[in-house]
């Protein structure tokens, strides 16, 4: 089986996971609406925020698939602006989950060469997965962060008490075809957001990895800063 066929099969299983994953926000909206009919207290903000975010997740999934073989143009990006914009999108949903969202930007390392849509899509997809996981822990804080490392700059989403490791992520990716939920230690959902994020990063030749930010664990991606861009 060539890599094109393998990709197609993987995309099929990802589609299944995404379709299954979209059930959750629709059930949230449905049951909130039914509750509203009973007690006249429909949380319309919640319904709006969930619907909005789910539509963005669908867009991320379609972007990740790259069906039209779009060119993901790389451009100089301010990582802090990408993080702040993604955090703005995630914040409303985090509130409904009782999770506090933070942004942590260490060091001024100038622009990175990347693609804004793919990077924001990555942060939002992973962000939602971590918000869902963190909401049932004692430490309900999720942090969008960047930090410098030996090889470049890492941007990612982190939390304190989530159960995530490289082996869990590796196993999850391996089991995407066999298991309905391939990372049950990490999330009660099927983790589709993580796999969508991975596809988005692959489109810009970047990798998804488990990473640490101070005492927090999470998922990040490594980018190089451009010395040339810094001179501009």
């Amino acid at each position, binding site marked *: 089986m060539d890599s094109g066929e393998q990709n197609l099969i993987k995309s099929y299983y990802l589609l299944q996971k995404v379709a*299954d994953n979209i*059930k*959750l926000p*629709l*059930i*949230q909206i*449905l*049951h*909130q609406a*039914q*509750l509203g009919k*009973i*007690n006249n207290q429909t949380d319309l903000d*919640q319904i709006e925020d*969930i619907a909005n975010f789910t539509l963005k997740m669908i867009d991320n999934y379609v972007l990740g698939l790259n069906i039209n073989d779009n060119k993901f143009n790389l451009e100089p990006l301010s990582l802090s602006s990408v993080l702040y914009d993604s955090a703005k999108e995630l914040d409303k949903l985090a509130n*409904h*989950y*009782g999770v506090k969202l933070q942004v942590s930007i260490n060091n001024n390392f100038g622009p990175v060469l990347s693609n804004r849509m793919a990077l924001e899509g990555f942060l939002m997809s992973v962000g939602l997965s971590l918000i*869902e*996981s963190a*909401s*049932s822990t004692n430490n309900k804080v999720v942090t969008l962060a960047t930090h410098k490392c030996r090889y470049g700059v890492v941007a990612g989403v982190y939390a304190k008490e989530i*159960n995530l490791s490289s082996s869990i992520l590796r196993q999850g990716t391996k089991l995407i075809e066999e298991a309905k*939920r391939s990372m*049950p*230690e*990490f*999330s*009660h*959902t099927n983790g589709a957001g993580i796999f969508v994020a991975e596809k988005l990063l692959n489109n810009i030749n970047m990798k998804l990895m488990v990473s640490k930010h101070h005492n927090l664990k999470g998922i990040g991606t490594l980018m190089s800063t451009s010395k040339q861009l810094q001179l501009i």
Partner: protein
Amino acid sequence: MKVLLVEPDKILQKTYANALESSGNIVVSASSAQQALNELNIEIPEIIFMELELTKNSGIELLYELRSYGDLDNIRIVILSTIPEKEMLNKFGDFKVQFNIYKYLYKPSATINKLIELTK
């Protein structure tokens, strides 16, 4: 009625707890199998609503645990899950009889009214 709600999604947990409390029930919520067992050590409810897709442990493992304790044997258990009943039957055979499941509700077609009805 005293209700134990085992629901890992916080948004749904709030919605269901709200619905059950507004119809006069006392609701204790748990997000995981371990939390559920901790709550059961404190007080035994009259009915348990539980999702089968939990973080870390599966709902089936929790069911085994619940039905292995003599004093929890008679609690009504209502499954409220995103897994279709047919899928569970195909995988686990007649688990409803094995675990003495009172009702199986598939979330997309379950209604808030039904949940409330089951506590009357």
